Every structure is written in structure tokens, then in C-alpha cells.
């Protein structure tokens, strides 16, 4: 077994945690718990970024960690939490496909993601290249979650989790993206959540529910 330093080992452990949280999100039915899981995902992400920054001595990663902390752990969950309160959508929501099937599909996706990451991580230069598979798996699982949910609110959480996966892939394989790109993405995310919030109200006003199946009636025949 090759020599891996302590920080890298912790990051790999955190990557495992990230994957676990993704699976938990896939199975979770309640919006409130889903939101809490998202916060946890953010916390893990921040921790791993700080660790990577410390082990690789990269100051710009500290900034992006701070940005993530501010945005993904504090601001966005807060906005979403208040939205949830206002809209009164704390009750259960059933996925389109039942949970065990979802888990099995997720498992296949993880295997696929690892297969996909193999040739890429062989080219990567960082010590943390093994985690790329996990990052891709998180992205695919988040996508699956968006796909399988009925409610607009849970889809937004899936979208944010997808973004987390992308961010994790960036930090672990190439020590983060240029600051400009990261700032731009952060701003996009913030704007997106605001727009989603507005849309929630509109959808609910129109259909008396946030259930996206109702949108089917918009189709022209």
C-alpha cells in the first residue's frame, strides 16, 4: 500500500461520508430531514476543503472553503428552511420509484462512476485522485434524486447536492477551480435558489400544490 499522509486519509474518509449522505438523501422522505442532510453534506465538504488546503498549502482553497461555509451551510439552507415553513411542506413525500429499487439503481451508478473515474484518476496528479469516483457518484446520485422526486422543493435540494458533488470533484482532483469560476458559480447558485423560491410560490398559486405531476396539465394536445 502506498504511503498516504494523515490529511489525505481523513479526506478519503470524508468522501465516504459524502457518498453515505447521498444515499441517505436518496432514501429520505421528509423535506426537513433532507435539508438537514444537505447541511451535513456542506459541513463535510467544507472540512475536506480545509484539509486539502492545509495539506497542499493553498490559500485560495481557504477562501473557497469560507465561501462554501457561508453559502451552502448558512445562507442557502436558511432560505430554504424559511421557504419550507412558509409553504408548509414538511410532510412526507413519496418518491416516484420505491426506495429499494432506487437504492439498487444508485448502487449500479456508483459502480459505473468508479469505472468512469479510473482512467481519469490515473492522469490526475494530486494525492486525492482516488476520490474522483466518489465525486462522480455523488453527482449521478443527486441527478437520480432529482429524477425520482415529485416535489419541486426536493428537486432543488437535489440540485444543490449535485453542485456539491461538482465542487468536491474540483477540489480533490485539481485543487479547486480558479477563483473567478468559483465566485461565478456561487452567485449562480444564490440566484437560482431565489428564482426557485419565486417559482415555488407561482406553482403553488396555480395548482394549489408543489406536486410537479400537476404540470402535466400544461401540455398542449
Amino acid at each position: 500500500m502506498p504511503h498516504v499522509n494523515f490529511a489525505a486519509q481523513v479526506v478519503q474518509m470524508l468522501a465516504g461520508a459524502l457518498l453515505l449522505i447521498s444515499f441517505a438523501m436518496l432514501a429520505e422522505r421528509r423535506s426537513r430531514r433532507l435539508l438537514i442532510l444537505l447541511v451535513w453534506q456542506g459541513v463535510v465538504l467544507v472540512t475536506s476543503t480545509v484539509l486539502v488546503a492545509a495539506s497542499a498549502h493553498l490559500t485560495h482553497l481557504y477562501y473557497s472553503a469560507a465561501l462554501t461555509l457561508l453559502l451552502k451551510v448558512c445562507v442557502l439552507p436558511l432560505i430554504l428552511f424559511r421557504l419550507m415553513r412558509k409553504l408548509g411542506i414538511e410532510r412526507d413525500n413519496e418518491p416516484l420509484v420505491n426506495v429499494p429499487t432506487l437504492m439498487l439503481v444508485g448502487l449500479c451508478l456508483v459502480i459505473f462512476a468508479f469505472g468512469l473515474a479510473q482512467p481519469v484518476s490515473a492522469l490526475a496528479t494530486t494525492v486525492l485522485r482516488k476520490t474522483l469516483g466518489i465525486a462522480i457518484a455523488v453527482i449521478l446520485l443527486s441527478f437520480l434524486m432529482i429524477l425520482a422526486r415529485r416535489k419541486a422543493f426536493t428537486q432543488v435540494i437535489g440540485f444543490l447536492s449535485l453542485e456539491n458533488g461538482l465542487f468536491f470533484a474540483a477540489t480533490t482532483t485539481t485543487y479547486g477551480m480558479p477563483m473567478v469560476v468559483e465566485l461565478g458559480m456561487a452567485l449562480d447558485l444564490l440566484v437560482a435558489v431565489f428564482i426557485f423560491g419565486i417559482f415555488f410560490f407561482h406553482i403553488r398559486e396555480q395548482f394549489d400544490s408543489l406536486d410537479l405531476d400537476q404540470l402535466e396539465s400544461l401540455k398542449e394536445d
Partner: protein
Amino acid sequence: MHVVSSLTTTTPLAGLLILVASWFLIGALGLIQPNRIGWVARTLFPLGALVALGIAGVGAMSLVPGFTAQSSVLALGLPNMPFHVRLDTLSGFFLVLLGSAGAGISIFAAGYFRQGEGTAPGLLCLQYHVFLASMALVVLADDAYLFMVAWETMALSSYFLVVTQHRIPEIRRAGFLYLLMAHVGALGILLSFGVLQGGSWQMTFDAMRAAHLTPAWASAAFVLALFGFGAKAGLVPLHVWLPEAHPAAPSPVSAMMSGLMLKVGVYGLLRVSLDLLHVGPWWWGLLTLGLGLGTALYGAIFAAVQTDMKRLLAYSSIENIGLIFAGIGLALLCRSFDMRLLAALALAAALIHAFNHAFFKSLLFLVTGSVMHATGERSLGKLGGLIRYMPWVAALALIGSLAIAGLPPLNGFVSEWLLLQAFLQTPRIPHAFLNMIVPLGAALVALTVALAGYVMVKFYGVIFLGQPREQGLENAHDASWLERVGLSWLALGCVLIGVFPQVALDVVSRITRQLVGTSVQRGPSPWWMTPITSSQTSYSGLWLWVGLLLVIGVTFVLVRRIYHGRVRRTPPWDCGYPWQTPRMQDSSEGFGQPIRHLFGPVFRMQRELPHPSDPKPTYRVQVQEHFWHQLYLPLGRLVQRTAERVTILQGGRLSTYLLYSFMTLILLLVWVL
């Protein structure tokens, strides 16, 4: 204007660009006070006419001997892909056409547009001048990029002009059809340019001239160009938009579309087939020739049975475009057999005919505009006797009608005579079958011209001669002075080219020298036009005029002297039927009847004949085209069905849509793996 003129003396191209830009500016100025007719119509439109004259004048500089083509790269366009412009004899000629005919139309429009007819006048002014400027840019473009940008601007601005009265559903429908055909045609042109660049991926025309295409690819480029430019020019069977869109538009716009825009389509085909492409196989010429002759005859036959005066003129435009295309086809055919002189003759005929058509067709469309304003009618069946109430318009319309009918002292005769001369030389083509088939084209040209004469007798006779068919026609007023100036300008053009055809031939010979390498000499005498040899045929417009005037003068004097005082006025014989009304005059349907009978299978007719015992008998006949029912409607249904198949993908469920992107992502990733 002083700055412009001092610049044009240095380089004509810079002057032209400034003039085109000032058209855009005039258009934009119309938005300042869009509803004030005094500002928009009486100030801006005359200014636009001045700019048009300037464009014609500067464009004419390219036609003086000793001119060499000028090109320049503009600081506009995309990064690494700037706009190229070039002024050579061909583009100069079409600029002269555009400017000189456009000036007359603009002056007329200054007196024509009124308050409260659909779109605000200021907006019309913008669209009108953008339309003019984009046509000039198409002609000036020296790369496919600027060409397509200007081409699409032209299509869009003219679309908005067509749907000026967008509250009427038929006009919206006509506009849509026009837009659709314009886009289908533009697709053909775009693909043609894509083939023409020949793998160099350079979009400049210089690169296309230098490209070496295999014969198959060159033919593909030619056929695509013929399709695209033919759709714009109105080549059968791509002409269906023309009889719908021309009547829908306000008359000055119809005049611009028919007189100018169709010529831009002709320009495009000339540019691609004679300049960008190298000499091709003979079937290119034969295809163009056949389509052109078919179009000419088809247009003439359909024009003869129309009852709406603007539709009649639209079909007549199709006929004239057909003659122009026949000339181009003959030029291509002769060029492929290296018969340079004959190619030059045919091309000269096509170019002069394009120029003539711009003048007389614009003139006639503007006349219909004046008639519509005066009477509110455009159906021939409700007009008549207008020569008494609108003498100016009637006199000028007579010149236009005689010119379009191809009668000798006027310009229409010149180009048709040249075309006929070219056809009569075709037995010399060194190909066993072509030298027998192609001369038959002369017969078709003659038939078409004769039918065109018939159409014009109907057009002029039903509108201006006889008795008024409706009550209110006595109140019709003549055109305003601005309208008269515009009409007179165009009529003057018809007369001048008719009197001095050898000058026109001289001018055109510079273009033929550039495109086919040689030119037709006008002959040894300055007063006679002798395109081939004096032993075969010659024509002098001036001497014919002198002769005609002499005959008329002598007759007039003789009648005055000898027959004076012996005039009696009596009612005509009424066939023993005393109660006659003006509605018993020969109607436009009546004029069309022999043609409907002779060419029956060509039409799709629906007739409603009255029952003998009907107290209020009505007769209705509707003539439609087979192309519409047998080509376009099935095509439309096919598109509809395909679209319905594709719509299944769009189920309306959000998760299905998400699944599409998810599966695409996975598939792409598998691909990478």
C-alpha cells in the same frame, strides 16, 4: 451631401457605404415622430429618394470604361470574420437599377402613405429604408457571411412591410407563406455557399472563386443556388408566395418587391453561377433555360385569368422573371460550349430585361396604388373608365403597359428582341440535340410575349377604358403631385431605354466582358443597334420614334385639314336591346375566358353557373394552381405528421424530461469510457 460627393470622388465604394448607412439613419429618424405624416412622408421619404439617386450615380461610376473592381474590409462583423465588400461592374449595375428605380418608388411613397393605415408611418419608414439598404448590402457583399446577413435582413424587413395591415387574416397568412418560402430559399443559398467554399472554410468570395470543386460538388452548389435564388425570384414551382404577398403589401412595397427584390435574387444567381463557379456542364444552362421558359409561359397564362389587378401584376412578374432566367440559362449553356459571343448576347438581354422590368413593373404597381387610393377597389370587375377621372395616371400607365407588352418604341421590346435574337442563333450550338431543341425556345418566348400583350390589353382596358362599372367611380381623383413625379420618373426610364437601347447595350457589355469574357458590339453606326451583323438584323429606337411621330403628325394634320368638320356623334348600335348598363361591358373574366378554355388543364377551376330560372343569377369562377394542391399541401401534411410523431417525446412529465438528460449524460459517459 457635400461631404458625400467629395468622398465619392476619391473612392466610389466608400461613398456607397456612406449612402447605405444614411438609408439606415433615415429609417431610424422615422421613429422620432412616427405618427407625423409631414415629417415621415414629406421629409424622410424624399431624402431617401435623394440617397437612392446618389447610389445610382455612384454605382454608375463602376460602369464607365477603365474602372477596376474595388474591395475593402469593414471593421464590422464577428472577431476574425469581418465583413468584406466589393464593387465590380455586376454589383454596380444592380446598384444603378436599385437606386434609379428605388428613387421613383420613394418619391411616390412620399405622396402615398397616409395616416391610420395599419402600421405607424414612422415604423414603415424604418422598415422601408432598412429593406432598401439591405438590398444594397446584398449586392455589395463580398463574403458569404455579410451576404447572408443582408439577405436575411432583406427578407425580414420586407416581411414586416408585407404585413403592414396585419389585422386582416389573409394578409397575415400571405406574410407567413412569404416568410416560410424566404427561409427555405435562404437555406438553399446557405448550403450552396457551404459547398462553394470547397474545404477551405473561408467564407470570402475570393476564396470561393479560387476553390476547385469536383464536378459533382460544383453541380450540387449550382442546383442549391438555383433553388435558393429561384425561390426569391419566383421561379415556378417556388413562386407560390409571390401572388399572395405582392397583393397583400402596400403598393410601393409591392413595387419594391417586384421591381427590386426579385432582381436581387437574379443578381445572386448571376454572382454564383457566372462569377463564383467555373464553367460547368451544359445541363446547368438547359435546366435554367427550361425552368425559365416554363415559368415565363406559366406566369403569362395565369396573369391572363386574374381578376385582381395586383395579382395580375404579380403573375406578370413571374413571367418576366422567367424570361430573365431563360436568358441566364442560355448564357450558361453557350458558355459551357465556349460560344462566348452568344453567351454575352443572351446575358445582355437578361440584364437589360431585369433593368426594364424594374422600371415598368414598379410603374404599374404604383399605378394600382393610385387607383386603389382613388377608388378603394382592386378588383378589376369594379373598375373602368378611369381615363376620364385620372388622366395623369392613365397616361403614365399606358406607357408602362406598352413597355411591358414589349411594343417597339419602348424598353420592353429591346430586351425581348435581344433575347429572341440570341435564341435565333442557337442552331449553331455544337450538340446534336440541343441545336434542334433550344431554338424552339424562340417560339415559347414569342408566345409568352404575345400573351403578355394580351394581359396588358386586359389590364389597361378594363381599368381605364370603357364606362365606369360602379357608381362611385366618377368621384375618383387623380394622383397627388409627388405621386405623379414618381410615376413620371419611372415612365421616363421606360422611354429613354427604348430610345437609346444602344447605350444600354454598351453599359451591359462591360458586365458581360467581366463575366463571360467578351461583349456584344452595338454596331458601327451610333444610331443603330446591330448585335450580330448588319446583314442579319438591326434596330434603332430613335429612328422608330422619329418615324412614329412623323406618321402620327402627318395623320393628325391630314385629318385636321381634310376631314375637318365632318365628325358625327351617334349612339352605338345596341343590338336591339335598349337598356344598357356599364356592367354589360366586357369583364375581366370575359377577357380571361379564351385563355381558360385554351389552357384548361393548366388550371384548377371551380365554376358556379347560375340556374336558368334563378331570379338573381350569379356567376363565379375561381382559378387555382395545381402546384398548391398537388405539391405544397401534401408537403405541408407530411411535415405536420412528422411533427406529430416527434411530439410524443414531449409528454409533459417533468421527470421524463429529466430522464432524457440523465440518459444522455450516462450514454455520453459510456461513450467516453
